[in-house]
């Protein structure tokens, strides 16, 4: 019984969902079935909503341990995290319960003053990383690397007004590269990825991908 519930049960869930969603996608179905199908698609994000709550609890538990143990060099930061998490979650919950949602003033303040600038900053910190990665990585060690460098330079020159001043041809050349060669280069990768996805799906429904070692 236990093995059935632990191993074959989750497998059966995946198998049923996949069969249903594949059949409804490829074959013409009556409208009620299609309505049901469109709700099944949304099911994933509803169930994942619970996981997001569990995730927040896990983070909280993880940091409360540091707090309780007074781990040197960490407990203070854990305190910052726990407090900000609780305040944000409380503000968000009040917003949802009262129906004003994310426009609830304290929540909007946290979102605009902390979340938005922080995420924009981490996103844009890439400007530094892309610079140092370029320095390290565009090193001509062999023939393919030379090709990598040349295209990199053409496209960088083509992107900017500086390149235009040096040679007006950079821009059209970089457009040609991006439109044709880049498209061609990624096509086999996409085809391969598609095949990989299909076979991974097969392995999973046959119960061969996850939890096989029991």
């Amino acid at each position: 019984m236990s093995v059935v519930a632990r191993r074959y049960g989750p497998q059966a869930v995946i198998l049923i969902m996949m069969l249903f969603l594949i059949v409804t996608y490829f074959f013409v179905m009556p409208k009620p079935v299609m309505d049901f199908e469109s709700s099944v698609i949304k099911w994933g994000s509803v169930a994942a909503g619970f996981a997001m709550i569990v995730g927040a609890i896990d983070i909280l538990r993880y940091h409360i341990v540091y707090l309780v143990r007074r781990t040197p060099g960490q407990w203070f930061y854990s305190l910052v995290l726990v407090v900000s998490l609780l305040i944000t979650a409380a503000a968000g919950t009040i917003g949802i319960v009262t129906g004003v949602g994310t426009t609830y003033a304290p929540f909007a303040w946290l979102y605009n003053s902390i979340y938005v600038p922080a995420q924009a900053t981490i996103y844009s910190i890439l400007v530094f990383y892309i610079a140092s990665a370029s320095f390290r990585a565009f090193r001509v060690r062999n023939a393919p690397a030379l090709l990598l460098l040349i295209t990199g330079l053409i496209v960088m020159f083509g992107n900017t007004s500086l390149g235009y001043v040096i040679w007006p041809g950079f821009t059209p050349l970089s457009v040609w590269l991006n439109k044709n060669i880049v498209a061609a280069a990624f096509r086999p990768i996409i085809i391969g990825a598609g095949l990989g996805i299909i076979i991974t799906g097969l392995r999973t429904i046959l119960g061969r991908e996850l939890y096989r070692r029991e």
Partner: protein
Amino acid sequence: MALSYWDIFGVWIAAAITVWLYSFAFKDNVLYKFSEHLFLGVAAGYSFTLGLDAISRTGITPIVTQGRVEYIVPIIFGLLFFGKYLGRYAWIARYGSMFVLGVGLSIAVRTAPEAFILKQVAASILPLYIPGDPIMSITHILMVLIIIGGILYFVFTFIPGGTEQRPTTTYKVYDILVKFGIYGMMVGFGALFARTVMTRVAFFIGRLRFLMGPEAIGATVVAVILVAIAIGYAYMQERKGGAQAAGAQTATSSS
């Protein structure tokens, strides 16, 4: 427009976090760690809110307002995630994972043949000879060679001459085609990498403009001075710790 104290405080916090998060690129320091944990806390709280919102708006609302009882299914599977706190029965949380995965896998598998394979195949069928346009003809020939070579590169189990790669004629043809594929991919990678530099710089300009704006510039200056001190302190600590490097490693391992 008069700014409230909260607005001003918000701008100061935003500017400080921006500067401090950037400081990581130079060196990890206490102010980064502070901002990081503040950000993580708010993000986790925000994620909690989004979760609640998804449950209420996408899950419960259709049941209540439209009588779509089928939405009880994801709610039950979602509740199983809490099973992980049940100790011996923690495995029931798997049902939640596998349920969500069932949706994702199905969406991916059912669209893959068309979007990933057939569309790409169709787009690869290009006219190799275009009268009066030698450049386009050559471009298309090159593209087709790169595509065929690329596909061959990804073949794992059918290799002419076997895995020992004997120099037969078929192997030579295969090898040349694969080279087209590899070199084509290199060009593609170089171009894509370089292309993103522009967007990254654009985003950075956006942050700099915010930091230099009249409302934030004061906060920016203060934050930069503070972070300079923090980084200096971090270097000093490192030099001190350098003598007892082995000890330092185990000390940080729990953080």
